[in-house]
Structure formats: structure tokens, C-alpha cells
């Protein structure tokens, strides 16, 4: 019997094996997903820097004579901030490298999807990704990069620097796709993205040589969201564990100048500040050292390094039970573990540091909507002492803390400042331009929350005019992304279908468009494909209330319109028949001149 082998796999390899999950299951879906990932990355990058986005999407067939599925070159140009030259290889040549770690609303997370698209292109065509980036608008760096899947490392094939005409990023991949099948979805996607991003100019040049261009309708952008701490309801045990680690790391990070202060405090000159000298002096003068100098002193001694090297060292963890300290040595470029010496004076100091912050200040500083008094009341609720050091919690206590954070009902609802709804006016302008309806109304609900995640629902309803569809057409958006697939199982469709439209004077196949936009730090998608939103009761409620509000507006419009139409119809009927009646009765009565009925018709036509 052969021994089983367990291999660690790299994230690239994991995604390579599970690409279906990320929307790269077949040439049709993959082409569409790749378009989405790149366009969304561009829009996100512009949003974050407050740049009015101009995005140009180009898809060309490598061989125009070939039949689908065939090889396409997909290129996205933007006018965003670009990517700094030193980050380009990692950003486009590794999986799980990205800049979106904060807790705020964004279209995508971590930039993962774009690297997935690059990975997909590479495995279907074995062609590198072309990246051209300019952060200053003067010079640009052009790369050709392949991804080493097993090592999760970039392989730079070419790198050149040249003059740039404008700032921005341009990414181009070669991939297998099926435009004949994906085309309508991609066009819908571009169209709907333009609708929900009315401050962007988006153009799309398709493989047949057709150009779809949507110019920006607004010259101003909605205010960007702020990055905020998580809400107590929105964290799980693993998140708390990471937050504790992070808090400890903050405690042991040494700022600029700490090394110099230590060297002075030890009475040394810069030139003598080697480890041996420092260790000796620290042992002698520990008690006289100021609190600010004690941290660099303790760390330099424990890691056996010069204070000058401390900024290169990143402490991962101090394990008091094992007497070890783990850290990343930036000079050697490797993770290391050092043994702590219990006899040294720094030991009890580090032990104290490792115990971490008191629970009360941990909660106050690292969560939103928690003040000292709330933290104290919560501690009582969870049966912890407020001064309990969080580094000393064992696993069972961590679980209890996590459960209590979920169960405690007195926290204020989540802070919506991390959300970036489009706003009523931009939504109205966008819908007005796109649909040219006879009637339009928009509403933005006030912020609400589900499971600790804040969300805002905004929506608009448009009727008649340029809308040619028969029946209700729903445009669904989440965090400014159009949702095109899996309409049937979406919460928005459920809410729309549950409405008794007859009550709102909407009859038969009315030409009606409903656009809904759900903004949240975490949209509860039903699937990884991010195409339909799950029916959380809180979200469903907000959608329903918003839609009812709009439907009432529509209803009063419809009755005004109905009355006007009926009046017009009536006036037409009178104009058709009354002259006949007049003609007949004149002869019957044996009169010559017809009766004076004209004023009567005018009056009726106006009254209705």
C-alpha cells in the first residue's frame, strides 16, 4: 500500500483547479466574466481616487476567419491612477494580491477576479498578459508577464519604459471565448453598467467592428465611501482572532526614530550600536529606560539584532506559552522564530505586551459604534471583566466572545458611511437619459443592516415614453454592478412579482422599467458567480418599501394620465358624433341652420 502524499498547493493552483467557481466554466461565460472583472477594476480604481472614469473596452478576434469558440484579445484601457511600477508584476502575476482590504463598499474584492481572468487566458492560449501603466501621465511601463502557477510567482518576459500621453492602466489578455454567444450579455453588461455609472464614459468596440459608446451624463461623482471598522454583529471567531493578532502587532511595531531614541538612551553612538553592545547595556540599564525605549530594547535583544535593523523586522506573534517569537526578517527575506530567554529583564515586559489590550479598549478602538460604556455593558453581558486582556483568551473564551457579539442586542446599527449609493439625482438623470420615459420616480431608502453589514437600497421606476418593452423589465444592480444572470431566483424579482400591480393601476403588459441598486459592504449573493441576491428579510423589506413608495407615485401618475386619456377619448367621440346628431335633428326639426353646439364640445374636451 503506497503511502499517501499530502502536497501544499499554491493559491494559483487552487484557482486553476477550481476555475468554475469564479465564473470561468466555458468560453462563453469566461469571456463575459473577464470583461466584467477588468471593467470593474478600472471603475473601482477611478472611484477610489475620485477620477471621472473613461473606460474603453476592445475585443478582437485573433483570427477573424476562425469560428467560435476562438481566440480573442481583450483589452481594457482606463484613465485611472495606474499601478506603481514595482507592484505591477505582483498585481498581475500572482493570485491573491490586491489593494482592496479595507471594509468599505467596492465592486469587487481583492482584485482576485482580474488575476483569475489572466490565469484563464494563459491556460487557454498560453499567451502572456500585456500591462501598460502610467501613474504620472509622463512615462509608462509596459510588461509582458506569465504566471508560474505552481509557485504562484510572476515571470516577467518583457519590461520597457516609454513616454506616456496620459495617466492610466491598460491590460490586454488573450483568451479563448465565444463572442457569438456571449455578445448580447456583454453588450447588456456595458449598457447597464453605463446606466448605473452615469458619471463614466464607457465605450465598447466589438469583434464585428461595431462601437457602443455611452458618454457620461454627470460631471460630478457621488462622494467616495470611507473605510471603517467592522460592526460587532459582522464578525466571526476567525475574524476576531485575526483582529487580536493585528492589535498585538500594532503594539509591537516600532515607529520611525525609535531606534535612534534607544541608541541615545543607552548612551551609545550610532557606530557602536551592534547587537552585543546593545544587549549588554540593555541588561544594565533596563530599569532606567523610558517606556518608549523599552519596546525597541526588548525586541532588539529578543531578535538578537541591531536597533537599526528593527524597521525591517515584522513581528507576527509572541507565544508566551512556548516562549517563542515569530517574525519576518526583511533583510534575509524569510520568516524566523526566536527563543525567548525567561531570565532576561525584557521577558516579563514582552509577556505583558503579548497579553494585549484590555477587552474594553479593544472593543472601543477596533469596532464601529462601540463606546466605553457600551463596551462595559457588553463585557458584563458576555461575563468578561472589561479589563480582561484579550491576548489571554483561550479558544473557548474566544468562541464565547464571538457568540456574545452576535447575540448582544444593544449595539447601534452599522455605520453606513462606508456605503456609496449612487444618489437619487444621478440615478434619476441616468434613467431619464437611457429610457426617456413619460414618468420617472426614484427613491433612496435610509440605511439598514443585516447580520452586522450595513446596506442601502435605491431604486427607480420609469413608465412609457421611449420604453418599448411589454411588461416589467427589471435592471438589478449591486454595488454598481449589473446582475444579468439567474434573474429568476433573485430577491428583487421576488419582490416585484409579489406586488399586486393592479392596485397601483398598472394593467396588462405595461411598458415599465424598474432599476434597483443594493449597496453593501457585503452583498449576500446566492452563488460565487455574483448574479443573484439572496432574500434576506431585511433586504427584502427595504426593497418592498421602496417599491411600494415608487408604485404609489406611479399610481397617481397613472390616474392623472388615465383621466387625461379618457378626456381626450371623450372629446374625440363627441367631435365625431355630435355633429351628426346636429345634422339629423336639424332636418327632423325642419330647421335650416344647425344648432350652436361648438362651445359645448370645446368645454367638454377641456374639462376632463
Amino acid at each position, binding site marked *: 500500500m503506497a503511502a499517501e502524499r499530502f502536497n501544499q498547493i499554491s493559491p494559483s493552483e487552487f484557482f486553476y483547479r477550481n476555475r468554475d467557481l469564479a465564473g470561468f466554466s466555458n468560453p462563453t461565460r469566461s469571456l463575459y466574466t473577464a470583461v466584467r472583472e477588468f471593467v470593474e477594476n478600472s471603475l473601482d480604481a477611478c472611484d477610489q481616487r475620485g477620477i471621472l472614469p473613461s473606460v474603453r473596452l476592445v475585443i478582437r478576434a485573433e483570427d477573424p476567419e476562425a469560428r467560435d469558440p476562438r481566440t480573442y484579445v481583450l483589452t481594457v484601457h482606463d484613465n485611472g491612477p495606474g499601478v506603481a511600477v514595482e507592484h505591477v508584476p505582483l498585481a498581475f502575476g500572482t493570485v491573491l494580491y490586491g489593494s482592496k482590504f479595507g471594509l468599505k463598499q467596492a465592486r469587487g474584492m481583492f482584485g482576485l477576479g482580474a488575476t483569475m481572468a489572466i490565469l484563464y487566458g494563459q491556460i487557454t492560449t498560453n499567451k502572456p498578459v500585456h500591462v501598460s501603466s502610467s501613474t504620472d501621465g509622463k512615462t509608462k511601463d509596459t510588461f509582458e508577464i506569465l504566471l508560474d502557477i505552481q509557485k504562484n510567482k510572476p515571470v516577467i518576459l518583457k519590461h520597457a519604459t516609454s513616454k506616456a500621453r496620459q495617466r492610466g492602466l491598460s491590460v490586454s489578455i488573450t483568451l479563448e471565448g465565444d463572442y457569438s454567444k456571449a455578445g448580447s450579455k456583454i453588450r447588456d453588461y456595458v449598457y447597464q453598467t453605463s446606466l448605473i455609472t452615469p458619471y463614466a464614459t464607457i465605450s465598447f468596440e466589438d469583434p464585428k467592428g461595431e462601437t457602443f459608446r455611452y458618454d457620461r451624463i454627470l460631471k460630478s461623482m457621488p462622494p467616495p465611501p470611507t473605510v471603517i471598522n467592522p460592526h460587532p454583529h459582522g464578525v466571526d471567531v476567525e475574524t476576531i482572532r485575526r483582529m487580536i493578532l493585528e492589535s498585538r502587532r500594532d503594539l509591537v511595531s516600532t515607529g520611525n526614530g525609535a531606534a535612534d531614541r534607544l541608541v541615545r538612551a543607552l548612551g551609545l553612538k550610532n557606530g557602536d550600536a551592534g547587537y552585543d553592545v546593545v544587549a549588554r547595556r540593555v541588561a544594565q540599564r533596563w530599569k532606567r529606560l523610558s517606556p518608549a525605549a523599552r519596546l525597541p530594547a526588548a525586541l532588539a535583544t529578543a531578535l538578537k539584532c541591531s536597533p537599526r535593523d528593527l524597521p525591517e523586522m515584522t513581528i507576527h506573534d509572541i507565544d508566551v506559552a512556548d516562549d517563542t517569537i515569530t517574525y519576518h526578517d526583511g533583510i534575509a527575506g524569510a520568516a524566523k522564530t526566536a527563543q525567548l530567554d525567561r531570565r532576561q529583564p525584557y521577558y516579563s515586559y514582552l509577556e505583558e505586551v503579548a497579553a494585549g489590550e484590555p477587552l474594553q479598549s479593544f472593543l472601543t478602538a477596533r469596532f464601529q459604534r462601540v463606546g466605553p460604556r457600551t463596551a462595559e455593558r457588553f463585557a458584563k453581558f458576555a461575563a468578561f471583566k472589561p479589563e480582561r486582556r484579550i491576548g489571554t483568551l483561550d479558544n473557548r473564551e474566544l468562541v464565547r466572545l464571538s457568540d456574545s457579539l452576535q447575540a448582544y442586542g444593544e449595539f447601534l446599527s452599522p455605520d453606513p458611511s462606508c456605503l456609496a449609493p449612487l444618489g437619487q439625482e444621478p440615478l434619476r438623470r441616468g434613467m431619464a437619459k437611457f429610457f426617456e420615459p413619460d414618468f420617472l420616480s426614484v427613491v433612496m431608502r435610509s440605511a439598514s443592516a443585516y447580520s452586522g453589514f450595513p446596506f442601502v437600497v435605491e431604486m427607480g421606476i420609469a413608465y412609457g415614453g421611449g420604453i418599448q418593452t411589454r411588461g416589467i423589465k427589471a435592471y438589478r444592480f449591486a454595488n454598481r454592478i449589473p446582475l444579468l444572470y439567474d434573474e429568476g431566483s433573485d430577491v428583487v424579482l421576488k419582490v416585484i412579482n409579489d406586488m399586486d400591480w393592479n392596485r397601483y393601476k398598472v394593467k396588462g403588459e405595461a411598458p415599465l422599467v424598474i432599476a434597483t441598486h443594493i449597496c453593501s459592504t457585503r452583498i449576500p449573493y446566492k452563488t460565487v458567480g455574483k448574479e443573484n441576491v439572496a432574500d434576506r428579510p431585511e433586504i427584502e423589506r427595504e426593497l418592498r418599501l421602496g417599491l411600494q413608495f415608487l408604485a404609489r407615485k406611479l399610481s397617481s401618475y397613472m390616474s392623472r394620465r388615465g383621466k387625461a386619456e379618457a378626456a381626450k377619448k371623450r372629446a374625440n367621440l363627441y367631435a365625431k*358624433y*355630435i355633429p*351628426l346628431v346636429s345634422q*339629423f*335633428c336639424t*332636418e327632423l*326639426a*325642419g330647421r335650416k341652420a344647425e344648432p350652436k353646439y361648438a362651445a359645448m364640445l370645446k*368645454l367638454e374636451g377641456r374639462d376632463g
Partner: protein
Amino acid sequence: MAKKAKSRASKTQKDVLDLLRKHGSRIYDDLDHGRFPNFEIPSRSVGNIVYDTKLRQYVLGKSAALRSSKNTSQLRSFTQLMWLAFFANRLTQEKKSSTLRDVYYSSQAFAIDFDDQSESDNIIVDLEAVLAKPREAMHIFPEERSSVFGDLDIEYTVPGYEGKRMNLSNHPDGYAIGPSLTSAELVGTSAELVIAVEKGGLFTRFVEEQVDKKFKSIIVDTGGQAPRSTRTLLKRLHDELSLPVIILTDGDVYGEHIAMVIKSGSANAAHLRELTVPDAKWVGVWASDIERYDLPTIPMTDSDIKRCHDLQKDPRYSHGIWKKELEVFLKIKRKAELEAFSKYGLTNITDRYLPQKIELARSL
């Protein structure tokens, strides 16, 4: 000896024209004052049809519907009604006759659209109800024709024949009862009796056997259920020439009802008062005649029996011979046609049966 008749036809015509002018002027005034005109139309729904025992016919009750030109769902039919009045006015003034079908097509020349003929027929009935005059008075006639024969002098009033006289015994096939005959003046007759028979075959036999001479009678063929022009003629013969009317029908429940409609009208024409001959007498064939004359019979069908039960609910069948004969039909469940007398020879009916029945009618 000839009786002199009054000029009834021209009076009817003047009545109609006066009524039409009256309504026309009312509507003209409304329009001239900026008011939407309307018509009050007696309701012809079942609930509003009642039997008037004094008039001895069905009449409409008091409920009426307002048809307003202001109401857009009624405006079209209001205009149709208005047009029909206008059209009838022209017909009557110009003494032209037309049929129900003519009316339907004529409307199209005036941009008055009727969906089909039944819609225009309905409007005609509406106008009859508004004016309480039969459509024949407005020169609109049905298609079906029945016949008359006998010593009756008439004087035409239709254009081209005004003043021309005719004796209705000159042609042995009889004379069709059409617009010109209906609107003619009844000048005089030597007859003392009108005999209405249900069937054309019997009518011919009666002419051949000279029933008109033998019994001093005018013979009228109703052709089944008597058309309204025939009923109008019967009424005029009775009212203007003071002739008694007797009716001979098949010996079945339908025959009994043919006689009843001539006598007291139909529910369909409850809005009209000039179509009935309340003094007309049904003399046969009765159910009781079937046994008395030992006539060959046919069994009654289920629908015959159902019809008997339906008629029993009608107040006119709640007494006298009408009630009694229905009961006999239901008892024997058999029926006999007029032709059944031919079992005893072709002239049996005129030689034996008819004299007995005429004798009987005098005593009724």
C-alpha cells in the same frame, strides 16, 4: 254592399311625422342651449313586460332607460337612434318603403356604423318604443310576406300609384301583404267576415272552394306566426271595416299561440299598441276537435309538451278556452294538422268543419 272606410293610413303617417318632428325639435333645442340631449327609452326587459287585462295584451311597465349623448358608452347608439329617426322621417315623407336589411346598408352612407344587422334591428325596436309606433308606420317592413284574398277595394297611397284602386279578388293566388297594401286606404268591401288561416295550402283550397263568396269573407294567409304587417291589416279590417276576425290554425300548441298573438300580441312587441285584434276568435283546430272529428293525429314531442307547460304560466292562458284546450293537449298528448280533414275528402273542411265553426264563432 260596400262599406266606406275612413282614411286611416294618412292619419298614421301624420302622427309619425309629428312625433319625429317633436323629438327632433327637443334635441335641436338641447344642442342649441349647450345641453347634451337624451332619449327616454321604455325598458323592454322581461321584468318590465306586464299583461294589461284592460287592453288584453302585453304592455311595457313604467321603467325606462335614459340614453344620453353625454355618456360616451351610449353616444354611439344615441347617434344611431337619431339617424334612424332622421331616416324614417325621410322614408315617411317621401313615401318610400324599405326593409330591415335596407336600413342596415343605408346607414353606411351617413358614416353611421352598425356592427351587424342585429344591431340596427335593435335600434329600430328602440325607435318603435320611443315613438310607440310600429316600424311599418315608419315605412320599414320585414322581409316575410303573407297573402290576402277577397272582395276588398283598396286605394294605393304609395308614390306612382296614388289614387289607383284595386279589388283583391281579381287574382286567385291572392295578394301579397306588402308595404303598398299595408299603407293603402281600405275603400270598401262586401265581406262580413275575415278568416285567417295558418297555412298557404289551406288558403289556396279556400280560394278554390270560393269560401270568400260562400261565407262572404276575406281570406288571410298568416304564413305561420303572423308578421306584423299582416296583424296590422287584420286590425285595420276589424277596426276600420268592423269585420269580425276568426282564426284557423293547426291543432297543436303552436297553432293555439299563433291565434293568441293575433288576438293579444307578443311579448316581443309589448311596446306597441296597434298590432292586436282583441276581439279575434280562435275557432280551431282545438284539441277537443281531434276526438270530436276523429282526426288522424301525431304524438306530441317533448318540446310540444314543454311549450304547453310554459304557456300555462302566461296569464292569458289562465282562463276559458285557452286554458281548457292546453289541458286537453296535455291529456291526450297528440296533435292534428289542418290537412287532417283530407282523410274525409278534400272539401270536407270547407263543406262541414268551416260552417260549423263560423256558426260557433257567432255564438261566442
